[in-house]
């Protein structure tokens, strides 16, 4: 897709590169990070971090009125041998190390959860099979906390599936020891009514590699904060995201990569397709290169494909650089309409309309899906994309 393709009405693609003495990423939040919900005022919706989010659809997660119900979620964890899975209380010392809640809902989750899950892969353990975490919503409200920790030089793939219907606020921590390699695939395949607000904090050890694949298809409101910081030099983070925002859905991904350590890398690629009236996708890509982080190499990109009228994209990449001694830094954002000329070209070769759309949308996601590098996940994603398109065709012809 061409960079300068027609930007749909009702879309914003703003970007900025700030070279600042003081972090605007930090100062444009309405309160400093805190574990205590009382440190955050109830948002009114005009704050920088809330201005795209429909607060009235958060089921009270933002204003203290949401109350946990007993059987909101069914969580099943399938872990290979050698992995420890524990349920721990609030006072466990391993909680809260990877990052601090940055907004009121994350702090609410941290203030309200009763038990946390800690999954540990011991040092030098290389898992041949993935750890599978199935989170199924049973219709209630829940506050969650999960820690996934890899010891030094451990390697693991974690697949987290969210299905069913729930109101969920959660914090998820990924703690990577030196030289560890962790890939996490988080799939938000919720039913239509679900509300899911979560902060994902990754703390990447020295020479460790973290790969996050965030896939959002379902839910009424999904608002995720994937965040990365580094505990030592030589760390790498890849943040991949794929979303398919349907009629009436709000899907918001707010990334932050905090280059707080020299000689670390990050690469973020998020791609989304939107279809239907009031489909709303928000992508915020904050990358902060602190003064100490010499030798940083970072790139972030967001692409959106708007398939129908009535959908809206807000895409805001923000790169903030406090040192000139870096290897590379870049960002890109583009939002394009589904191109009628592409459709005509394919149909003029005998390809029926539905199949032509499928080809174009698959093509749009293909490069990203290949980069994910997990064949069974790739197949699943492509199948899911096809199903989303199928559903839209059925809806359009109904």
């Amino acid at each position, binding site marked *: 897709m061409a960079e300068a393709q027609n930007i749909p009405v009702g879309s914003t693609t703003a970007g900025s590169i700030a070279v600042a003495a003081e972090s605007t990423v930090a100062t444009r939040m309405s309160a400093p990070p805190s574990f205590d919900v009382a440190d955050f005022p109830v948002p009114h919706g005009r704050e920088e971090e809330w201005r795209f989010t429909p607060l009235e659809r958060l089921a009270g997660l933002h204003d203290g009125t949401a109350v946990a119900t007993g059987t909101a979620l069914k969580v099943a964890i399938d872990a290979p041998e050698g992995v420890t899975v524990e349920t721990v209380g609030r006072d466990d010392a391993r909680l809260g190390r990877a990052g601090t809640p940055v907004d009121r809902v994350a702090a609410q989750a941290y203030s309200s959860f009763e038990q946390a899950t800690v999954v540990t892969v011991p040092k030098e353990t290389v898992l041949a099979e993935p750890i599978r975490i199935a989170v199924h919503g049973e219709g209630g409200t829940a506050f969650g906390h999960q820690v996934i920790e890899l010891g030094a030089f451990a390697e693991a793939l974690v697949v987290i599936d969210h299905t069913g219907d729930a109101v969920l606020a959660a914090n998820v921590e990924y703690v990577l020891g030196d030289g560890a390699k962790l890939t996490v695939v988080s799939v938000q395949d919720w039913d239509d009514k679900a509300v899911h607000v979560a902060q994902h904090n990754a703390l990447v050890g020295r020479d460790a590699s973290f790969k996050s694949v965030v896939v959002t298809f379902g839910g009424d409101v999904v608002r995720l904060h994937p965040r990365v910081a580094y505990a030592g030099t030589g760390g790498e983070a890849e943040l991949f995201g794929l979303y398919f925002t349907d009629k009436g859905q709000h899907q918001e991904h707010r990334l932050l990569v905090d280059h707080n350590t020299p000689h670390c890398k990050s690469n973020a690629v998020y791609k989304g397709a939107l279809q239907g009236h009031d489909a709303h996708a928000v992508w915020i890509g904050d990358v902060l290169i602190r003064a100490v982080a010499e030798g940083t190499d970072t790139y972030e990109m967001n692409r959106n494909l708007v398939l129908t009228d009535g959908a809206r994209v807000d895409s805001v990449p923000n790169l903030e650089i406090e040192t000139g001694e870096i290897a590379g830094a870049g960002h890109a954002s583009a939002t394009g309409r589904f191109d009628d000329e592409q459709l005509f070209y394919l149909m003029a070769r005998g390809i029926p309309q539905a199949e032509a759309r499928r080809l*174009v949308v698959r093509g749009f*996601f293909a490069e990203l899906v290949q980069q994910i590098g997990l064949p069974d996940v790739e197949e699943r994603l492509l199948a899911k994309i096809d199903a989303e398109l199928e559903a839209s065709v059925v809806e359009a012809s109904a």
Partner: protein
Amino acid sequence: MATLEIRDLHVSVEADNATKEILKGVDLTVKQGETHAIMGPNGSGKSTLAYSLAGHPKYTVTSGTVTLDGEDVLEMSVDERARAGVFLAMQYPVEVPGVSVSNFLRTSATAIRGEAPKLRTWVKEVKEAMERLNMDPSFAERNVNEGFSGGEKKRHEILQLELLRPKLAILDETDSGLDVDALRIVSEGVNRIRETGEVGTLLITHYTRILRYIKPDHVHVFAGGRIVESGGPELADKLENEGYEAYTKGGVTA
């Protein structure tokens, strides 16, 4: 025998909140095995004719008929026209990011032929067709038209023509932007299809240059949205010598 019949075709476009009539009564019959050159100055409506026949949504047919073997082409959707045997080689083929040429060709051939071609024979068929057009095998793995040079785009169009074997091939300014070598290769491709005797060809061009490689049976001069003169190949020679001036005077602008 496949026959395309165009009768009193009127076509309009919407531009600046106004409806503008571009085709003002086109009559033309193209039979299987025949080659018709449609020549005319810029803005005469030649490309509108091509895109209207293929069913581009930008163009509205306000009156007239188009039939292929008696079937009403205007009633068909774009893909139905292609499957009925209408092929448009485009002047400006569109990029389709993330879709490889090989995937595109196979999907298209499957749609046109009504069943997926057998993989082994298909691979051979594509490879040989590409060789004939001097296309490197790596071409198949590139994304459709993405980063293609002008010549590569046109060769890719003719490759599709060879593989899809339509009843009616409309070549919209296939010669534009080609150097002599590329023009020769592309023309040889078109001639291979013509020599089968199974295709009617509508060759739309601004220049007479391509007619040295592809010999038309009939030449039509297009001006002001209709055919204003028809003749044999000798008409092209006249245009070569005299240009379009005689046809653009009298209120019809180039």
